[in-house]
Structure formats: C-alpha cells, structure tokens
C-alpha cells in the first residue's frame, strides 16, 4: 500500500511538471533580456518586466542598455481593448441562444431531434479552412469585415453549436421530479423552466460560459481572417505581427503571456464548474413525455 501511494505521488508530480513546463519556459523568456535568453538559462537571470513595458509602448533601460518600445504597441493595445469588448458579448449571446436550444434538445420531445443533433455536430466539425474564403468574401461584401460586429458573429457560429451540444447533455441529466412537481402545481412549461430547471442548471451554464469565453478570447484563425491589418484587429490577430521580430523573443513571449494570463485566470476561477461537466450519451437521453 505504501508503494502505491508513493507511485501515485510521483505520477502526480510528473503530471504537474508536464502541464506547466512549456508555460514556464515561455514566462521565463518573457522576463529576460535577449542576451540572457540566448545564453540558454533554465531560470530567469536578471529578471525584469522590460518586455511587457516595451510592448505596451514604453522605452526602457535594460540590463545591457537602452531598449526602444515595440513599434506596433498602439495596435496591440487596441487589439486588447477590442477582444475585451468582443469576448464578453459573444459569451452572453451564446448563453442566451444555447440555453433554450440545449433545453429543447435535451429535455423536450422534438421531432427530427437526431437530425438537429447531427447538424450541430457537423457544423462543429467543419474545418475552418473550408469556410475561410467564403466567410472572407461574405464579410467583405456585407461590410462586416474589419468590424467588431463581424467578429462577434463569426465567433457565435462556432460557440453556439458546441455550447448547445454540451448543455443538451447537461439538461438531459438533471433530475426530473422537481420539474414535474412544479408543473403539477400549475407552473407552465416555461415557468417550470425558469424557476426550477434553470437554477439547477447554474453550474453547467457557468462551465459552458467559460468554454464560450475562452473560445472567443483564444480564437486566432477567424480573428486573423476577418480583422488582420484593420482597426478592428483583435489582440491575437495583432500577435502575428511579431513574426517579423524573430530576434526579439522576450517581447513575443511577453505578448503571448499577456494573452494567456486572463484565459488562465478565468479557467482557474471556474475550474470547479468545468470538472462537474457531465457529457451524457445522446442515445440514452430520456425524453420526458
């Protein structure tokens, strides 16, 4: 028994190291001067936040001399503001649309239910590259390209199907007795949904809100497609500019770390809800009569 406990702890530590190592290496690069980076240090030497200050538009005095601010810092900051507007709106609309749809598919008797579910799964499995060019043309023609509204719409086409699909399983797994009791007491279907089902579904909705927020916050492909090089460019789209600064690893690492921080904070704050997500076999979903 002792040996087993030791093995479990060894495995746990290995998992912790595996999960954190690439993030650690990114963060230490962001904290070092380029000379200390190239020297191949495995912990930060002359640690400083110069790279963060430079990408935010400040000239700094580094350990090896004066360093100029990142030339495109204005765009980067604008990108940060843009995504801070887009991601919460995407999250709110996704939840508003996916909660009723997930409830309908998971709990009501719907004709053509399996076809709708298959369509959901199919629209999620469209490789982005298949719709990239048509989206590009469509958004250019309708004037949605280079606008935050266009960005919100394109994110919704991805987040709504996936969140509906997850919530469908979640609603189907909730106990039915309370809802039935409420209806016997004279609640309408909608009344029972709002007063009984919705409060029970709170943790599941919180978890899917994280999924929607992280998708929008993290999206690179569509953001790049719709907004790159325009005033509506989001933070991620602006990051591609760093490919021209290969000799400045610290600034690139700092810019990426800045993007990760909020995502990590949100994921950690709400991880207790994510761990409770139960995906239920769509084949065994019991449909209430």
């Amino acid at each position, binding site marked *: 028994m002792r040996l087993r406990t030791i093995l479990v702890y060894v495995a746990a530590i290995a998992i912790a190291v595996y999960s954190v190592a690439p993030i650690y290496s990114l963060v230490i690069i962001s904290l070092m001067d380029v000379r200390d980076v190239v020297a191949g240090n495995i912990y930060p030497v002359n640690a400083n936040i110069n790279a963060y200050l430079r990408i935010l538009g400040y000239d700094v005095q580094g350990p090896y001399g004066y360093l100029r601010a990142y030339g495109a810092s204005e765009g980067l900051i604008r990108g940060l503001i843009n995504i801070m507007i887009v991601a919460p709106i995407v999250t709110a609309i996704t939840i508003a649309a996916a909660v009723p749809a997930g409830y*309908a*598919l998971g709990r009501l008797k719907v004709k053509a239910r399996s076809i709708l579910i298959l369509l959901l799964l199919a629209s999620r499995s469209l490789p982005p590259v298949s719709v990239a060019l*048509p989206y590009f043309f469509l958004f250019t023609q309708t004037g949605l390209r280079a606008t935050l509204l266009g960005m919100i719409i394109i994110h919704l086409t991805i987040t709504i199907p996936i969140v509906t699909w997850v919530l469908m399983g979640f609603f189907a797994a909730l106990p039915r007795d309370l809802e039935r009791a409420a209806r016997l007491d004279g609640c309408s279907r909608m009344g029972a949904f709002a007063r009984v089902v919705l409060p029970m579904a709170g943790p599941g909705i919180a978890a899917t809100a994280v999924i929607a927020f992280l998708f929008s916050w*993290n999206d690179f492909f569509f953001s790049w497609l719709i907004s790159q090089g325009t005033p509506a460019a989001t933070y991620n789209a602006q990051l591609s500019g760093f490919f021209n600064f290969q000799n400045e690893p610290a600034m690139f690492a700092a810019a990426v770390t800045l993007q990760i921080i909020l995502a990590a904070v949100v994921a950690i704050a709400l991880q207790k809800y994510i761990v409770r997500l139960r995906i239920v076999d769509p*084949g065994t979903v019991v449909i209430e009569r």
Partner: protein
Amino acid sequence: MRLSDTGLALILLVPLIALVFSINIYPIAYSFWLSLNDVSLIRQTVEYVGLQQYGKALSDSLFISSLQVSARFVVESVALIMLASVGMALILNEKTAIAPALKVLVILPWALSEFAVAIAGRFFLDRNYGFLNALLVGLGIVDSPLYFLNPINAVDWLAIFYAWNIAPIGAYFILSALQTIPEDLYKQAKTDGASALQRFRIVTFPFIRYAILITAVLATILAASSIVLSFALTGGGPGFASTPATLYGFRVFFNAQDFGYGAAMSWLILVMVMVASVFYFRLLTWRR
C-alpha cells in the same frame, strides 16, 4: 393556448437555427460553387470546369503528402490525448493531498489558445535558446543542442503539443465519469479477488467508456481541422515536412490565390472529416 412540446422546442431553437445555420449555409454553398470553377484573378475570369479541380487535387503529389502529414498528425495526437487524459484522470481521482492543486494545474494547457500553444512550443523546442535544449545540455544529457523540429520529427512534436493542449478537457470528462463509480463496486471486486487490471476492465471501464469515446470524437475532429498550430509552430516546415492538408489548402487559397483549387481541396478535407464524424456518431449511439 397551449403549445405542444415540438412547438415550444421550435421557438426555443429559433436563435440557434437563425444564427448558426443561416450564416453557415451561404459560405458552404459558395465554397462548393468555387470548387467547380477555375478562378483567375489575373485574367479576371471564372470558368466552369466541373470536377476537374478535384481530379487535380487527387493527382497533386503535394496534396497527397499533406494528407499523409494530416493522417499521421491526427493518429498520433489522438493516441497521445487518449493516453494522457485517461492517465491524468486516474491520478486526479486518487485521494491525495495534492489532488486539488493538481486539478488546477492540469487545466492550464487547455486554457491556452492554439496560437499560444504553438508559440510556447516554438520557444520550448528552439535550437538556440529553447528550454528543452538548455535543460538537456545543463544536465549533461547531450553535449550540443538538438534539432528537434527536423524533417522527420516535426510532425511528432506538433502532435505532442496538440495533445498537451487538448488532453486536459478529456481528463476532466473522464474524471467526472470516474467520480460516478460507487465505491462498493471496487470493494466487492477486491473481495472477489480481482487484480488491479481486472478491476479496471470490469468496474472502471464500463463507467468511463462513453467519456473516452466523446474525448476521441472531439480529439479527432479538432486535430483534423487544426491549422493554427502547424502554421505558427513549424510554419509547415522544414520544407513541406509538417504541412497538413488544412495548411496546404489555406496556402493555395491565400498565397497562390487559386480559389477554385483551394475550395476543392477544402471540400475533400471536409468530406473526410464528415466520414469520420458519421462513423463516430454511429459508434456513440451504438448499443451492445
């Protein structure tokens, strides 16, 4: 007036249908139309060529080799994701003092964007200042830095970093299934003299079978559509060694601006992903 269930469901589904299906139909139809034409930006012409673009793709050796890269990437990353997520879930399910902290650490790679994963991978594996090389040289395991992203292994590293990114959510799915297993079943199996492996097969596996399947489905679909990771980690290189079909199709679209040909390739990719999805959908709804 009382609504029937179907009526109410239709009302509840309106936002979904309006937002998702309506906005997806035009791009899908348009890209199919493109794939039947030869679009030339220089001559400003659009010529109907039927299925020629598809024939061209299937005889294009670059497209075939990019499909091979895709297949290798998908198989390797799904295998790694399954191994890592089951392993992590089993360890997270143990009642250890560090389990709560570990649960938080494990979710971190999943919170990263594919782009951030790619850049983290780039810095981790870099030949000149990469962390892995610094560590190996520092510990005296190798004398000089290794070239990890070489033509042979670049795809493997893409798969490793993709698995690093996706495995946490699979681990969470499997963990929540593990937590529904009644403790008594284990005790009973133990008193009946079942070995650890037998206990896993007879008690654990039936409970987590569905979560494992869902993870495999998601992993396959996501890996097959992945484009940002290869674009930002290896750039598809060295040479053409780690260019999956998605990235090749994208390059034909946006760099070569051969829209008809790019659309035809993306349709071939789409059909392959669809076939896999339908296969999985059958597997998911399959009853013993």
